[in-house]
């Protein structure tokens, strides 16, 4: 049996190992040395004390259909079941029973006007769609957004609950189409495509693979190890050779590829590496990476949109960021004297910390217009899993006199979609 062979393998491998006779002395010396220099690990406790973390899974649309057809440069990672065959429609669009998607390119965009919502979106509300600014009709059936300069998309669905999933699963070919950890990836060679996003425990990453060893790999590391570049390299990059400082980043050229390490903000370091024959595209890829634009409305807490707040909370408190080993937390509060307050906290980072935030409380299911949301109620707080692939947990706390508003606030928070 494999287990038996595995045990034998372990026994063989460790048979010659014995502890050093001076192990105790070394440990005691080490302890004395560390006692002198120890500063804290206290942040961890502070993080937990911040209140709740909790986890809810909001799955990204599964690429179940991957339809691409009459609509140029557009494919669909998700389509609702039972749509039947698409039919032609007037303009650059594709229509199924109960669903229609239209795209507008440069000339058409000018006709629509770019400064406000188009007339076919009734009673528009501003929303963030796929990380872009857009408009949603009051009945939740029409969604319009500017995918990029001079390229807009209108999705109309009879079933409002399917609208966002369709929009979220759309892919625009021929160009990079991803937002990751607050960065927009503006250019990627056509030769690579995204592997399933993953969030290893301790950092998050995106990988794009292509044939013949082509690979682009982007890693985000959060937390106290990432407060400065030097600290990051000391903790994580001790074995990296050939790094040279260039401006605000470190660059490396190695056999088969190139890499760049940079501090995006305090507590967030990115490592980009480009491998194989596409390494000649390295500089173009780097140039295409830009910070995700901040939107003035709705309120955003580290990318988590807050669409509803009880009236009268006029005082907005500055965001605070807590950093521990492998995690960060951004907190924003709105208050009204003497005691009314709402706080939204976005926790990102290593899975084990998010698990601690989620610990405790009781499972609750909320129904929001955008779909079911599973949360944990912890007293006057609720926590839920915002995103798995970028390891995000959202917590909302209210003062006791606003506890009847908590569900509504939580239901109308929106983690970043992309």
């Amino acid at each position, binding site marked *: 049996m494999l287990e*038996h062979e595995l045990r034998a393998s*372990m026994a063989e491998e460790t048979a010659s190992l014995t502890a050093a006779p001076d192990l105790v002395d070394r440990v005691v010396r080490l302890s004395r040395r560390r006692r002198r220099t120890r500063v804290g690990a206290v942040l961890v406790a502070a993080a937990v004390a911040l209140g709740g973390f909790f986890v809810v899974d909001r799955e990204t649309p599964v690429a179940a259909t991957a339809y691409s057809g009459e609509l140029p440069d557009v494919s669909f990672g998700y389509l609702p079941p039972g749509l039947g065959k698409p039919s032609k429609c007037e303009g650059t669009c594709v229509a199924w029973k109960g669903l229609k998607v239209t795209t507008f390119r440069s000339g058409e965009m000018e006709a629509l006007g770019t400064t406000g919502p188009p007339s076919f979106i009734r009673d528009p509300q501003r929303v963030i769609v796929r990380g872009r600014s857009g408009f949603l009709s009051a009945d939740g059936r029409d969604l319009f957004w500017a995918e990029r300069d001079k390229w807009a998309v209108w999705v109309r669905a009879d079933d409002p609950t399917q609208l966002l999933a369709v929009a979220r699963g759309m892919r625009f070919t021929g160009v990079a189409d991803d937002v990751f950890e607050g960065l927009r990836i503006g250019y990627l060679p056509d030769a690579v495509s995204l592997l399933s996003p993953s969030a290893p425990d301790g950092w998050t990453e995106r990988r794009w693979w292509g044939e013949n060893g082509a690979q682009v790999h982007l890693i985000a590391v959060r937390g106290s190890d990432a407060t400065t570049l030097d600290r990051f390299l000391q903790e994580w990059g001790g074995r990296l050779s050939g790094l040279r400082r260039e401006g605000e980043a470190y660059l490396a050229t190695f*056999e088969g590829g190139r890499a760049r390490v940079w501090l995006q903000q305090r507590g967030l370091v990115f490592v980009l*590496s480009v*491998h194989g024959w596409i390494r000649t595209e390295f500089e173009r890829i780097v140039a295409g990476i830009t910070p995700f634009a901040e939107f003035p409305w709705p309120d955003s807490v580290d990318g988590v949109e807050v669409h509803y707040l009880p009236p009268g909370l006029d005082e907005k408190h500055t965001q605070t960021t807590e950093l521990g080993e492998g995690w960060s937390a951004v907190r924003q509060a709105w208050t009204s004297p003497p005691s009314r307050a709402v706080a939204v906290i976005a926790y990102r980072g290593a899975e084990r910390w998010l698990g601690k935030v989620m610990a405790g409380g009781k499972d609750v299911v909320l129904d929001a217009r955008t779909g079911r949301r599973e949360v944990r109620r912890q007293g006057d707080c609720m926590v839920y899993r915002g995103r798995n692939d970028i390891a995000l947990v959202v917590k909302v706390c209210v003062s006791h006199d606003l506890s009847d508003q908590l569900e509504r606030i939580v239901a109308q928070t929106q983690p970043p979609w992309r």
Partner: protein
Amino acid sequence: METFAEFVAARGTSLLRLAHLACGSPHEAEDVLQTALERAYRHWSRLRAGSDPEPYVRRIIVNTAISRARRRAILSIIPTGTLPETAARNVTSGVELRQVLGAGLRALPPRQRAVLVLRFWEDLTEAQTAQALGCSVGTVKSQASKGLARLRLLIGADVMEVTRDA
């Protein structure tokens, strides 16, 4: 009650072996063991008030090894860029099989490796393993299953038939 020195004298080698399996490197194992023992030493009076300090030290060892392995993993990403999948090998002899298994174990993701080491080297139950790693029993089961599946893949399905028959 056992002193710290007595504990290290009695359990040091066993803990070093655990650290070695969890880290996959003898040099790193010594470092991880020292770190774990240093932490235990700091809290020794509290530990002694309880019962057996070994599970506590074991827990520090595996979690420190996991944490370090993850950091190393990031570094290894940059200079290599090789595809993660490795073709199955045709291994038939017992010695070679165990060598391949040892290498395969070292190549596993850190948490999977830790689960297999605790389950099959330390002979902990699933519940004890979960407690040591600070995760659920379900996670232990799935990680063990994935880890074994990867090892099977590595050595080739044919070999498993051979070893089952043996």
